[in-house]
């Protein structure tokens, strides 16, 4: 099985410097694309490959690129922003790619920038990824030195500057428009989504935002073609995916597997199944902001279309396993604590609603639960749902809560009835 994204990554070893990356076939896609392909050909190729954004939403990448204005007298400069602000609890996939093979991301972003004819690319990196920051700093310097960044890249006439922006840390920065406000030196509060950032983004200029893993796929698509990329997958979305598992499994970790690999296969074959003494109870498939799935859903393929059919989302593809020795109410309380703390406070439902949900869950967990609390939580799950808040943070926050109230109903009721947490 081919693993294009991780083939150069060796656990515990120094990431590839540029000479070794080139020896392994790196930057061939830049030479090929910038010299022989028109920008629109790359957009069409990425569309034909069915590459969908790996940040969580799964929007078709080529379709997004096609919305950036390309006319010669259009607004300048144009920006490409790489979202490397991986702060979703449970997610650790972009870090592995950037720490292990930094030039793969740089090559991908050069191609993405060429496709939309961007002048400046910015990697928006989360503060805590200090090792990634060091790695990217030398890799960027190497890429400038070898002429893959700067003026007239590989003699093609295309020029691109690349900056590394290290965030001061806040989950909401991962929301694209909030990220733009942060890069403009403000609080990371979301903007109205019209006009779309690809039309008016950073400093009011066209800005395309792509997740780091998404861009890492692009060199391989350019080198090997759309059919090859689609052939990597077990579903109609193209490519492989970095799936991860954390929780009480035997071998927590991350693996590059065909898109559409079933959850059960990831949990049992790759993560080694549950540890001794604990049993599987449920899983959040794609990071903290996705709905719980139970045993009967384990054969669902992990891809952007299949997971929603059973009531959850593929999200980041990094799953968190709940076992039968861990309190589900406690887990949901932990999740809502996170989201309440990280709400930017811009819109009232999120600012007020998430701390309210958190307080109720704390009360239930600590033995102060009341029967009417469950109705209140259900109502909050509706009041903070899609279309009722300014951005997707709160709807994402209530996804695990809404599903937990159905899946773990008896556990919630038992807490309230016994006035204590049965797991403590």
């Amino acid at each position, binding site marked *: 099985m081919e693993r294009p994204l991780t083939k150069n990554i060796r656990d515990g070893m120094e990431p590839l410097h540029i000479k070794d990356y080139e020896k392994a076939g790196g930057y061939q896609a830049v030479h090929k694309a910038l010299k022989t392909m028109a920008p629109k050909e790359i957009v069409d190729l990425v569309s034909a490959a069915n590459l969908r954004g790996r940040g969580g939403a799964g929007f078709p990448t080529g379709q997004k690129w096609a919305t950036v204005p390309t006319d010669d007298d259009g607004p300048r400069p144009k920006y490409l922003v790489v979202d490397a602000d*991986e*702060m*979703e*609890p*449970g*997610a*650790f996939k972009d*870090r592995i790619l950037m720490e292990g093979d930094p030039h793969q991301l740089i090559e991908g972003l050069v191609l993405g920038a060429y496709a939309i004819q961007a002048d400046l690319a910015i990697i928006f990196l*989360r*503060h*805590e*990824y*200090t*090792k990634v920051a060091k790695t990217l700093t030398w890799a960027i310097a190497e890429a400038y030195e070898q002429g893959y960044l700067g003026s007239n890249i590989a003699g093609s006439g295309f020029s691109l500057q690349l*900056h590394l*922006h*290290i*965030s*001061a*840390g*806040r*989950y909401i920065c991962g929301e694209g428009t909030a990220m733009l406000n*942060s*890069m*403009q*030196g*403000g*609080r*990371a509060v979301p903007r109205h989504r019209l006009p779309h950032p690809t039309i008016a983004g950073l*400093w009011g200029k066209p800005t395309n935002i792509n997740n780091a893993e998404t861009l890492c796929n692009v060199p391989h698509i350019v080198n090997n073609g759309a059919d090859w990329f689609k052939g990597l997958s077990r579903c109609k979305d193209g490519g492989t995916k970095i799936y*991860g*598992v*954390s*929780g*009480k499994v035997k071998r*927590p*970790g*991350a693996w590059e597997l065909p898109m559409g690999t079933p959850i059960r296969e990831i949990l049992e074959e790759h993560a080694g199944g549950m540890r001794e003494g604990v049993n599987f109870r449920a899983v*959040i498939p794609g990071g*903290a902001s996705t709905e719980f799935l139970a045993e009967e859903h384990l054969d669902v393929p992990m891809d952007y279309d299949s997971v929603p059919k059973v009531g959850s989302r593929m999200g980041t593809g*990094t799953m*968190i*396993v*709940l*076992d039968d020795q*861990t309190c589900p109410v*406690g*887990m949901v309380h*932990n*999740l809502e*604590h*996170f989201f309440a*703390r*990280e709400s*930017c406070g811009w819109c009232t439902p999120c600012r007020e609603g998430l701390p309210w949900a958190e307080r109720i869950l704390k009360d239930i967990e600590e033995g102060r639960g009341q029967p009417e609390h469950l109705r209140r939580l259900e109502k909050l799950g509706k009041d903070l749902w899609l279309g009722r808040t300014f951005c997707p943070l709160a709807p994402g926050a209530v996804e695990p809560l809404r599903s937990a109230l159905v899946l773990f109903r008896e556990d919630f009721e038992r807490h309230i009835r016994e006035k204590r947490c049965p797991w403590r």
Partner: protein
Amino acid sequence: MLSEEIKREIESYIREHCPTPRGASIEALMVLQRHRGWLSDESIRELAAYLEMSPDELDGVATFYNHLFRKPVGRHVIWICDSVSCWIMGYEGLLEHMQGRLGINPGETTPDGRFTLLPIQCLGACHHAPALMIDDDLHEDLTPQKFDEILERYE
């Protein structure tokens, strides 16, 4: 007064990255914090004038982000991950041990000024939970004993 060195660092960032001085506010706050350890009211006022912002506006930025400190911190900041994977893998027991060992609660600094303990959201080390950071260093697969050993490395 902002020192010449601080001004030079901020100025070069503005020149390379921002169409307007205010665009550099986060980086400028980080620069100031690196030099002064934390961001006092006075620091905010000085920097706001330099960036052509009102002090309140800059304070709004300085209080928004996790890694900008509006209160003094210790020589080392311990960031303990309290997110879901670390919670499942026993973060609460570890935190309890840390509080006992350091004699402080999250948000506080040891009386000798050596450590400040702060919670942080997911560190992206979920497969090696529980995890924490001390300054720029990530420590994974922690146990109370391992934590005690690590602590000795920080003066």
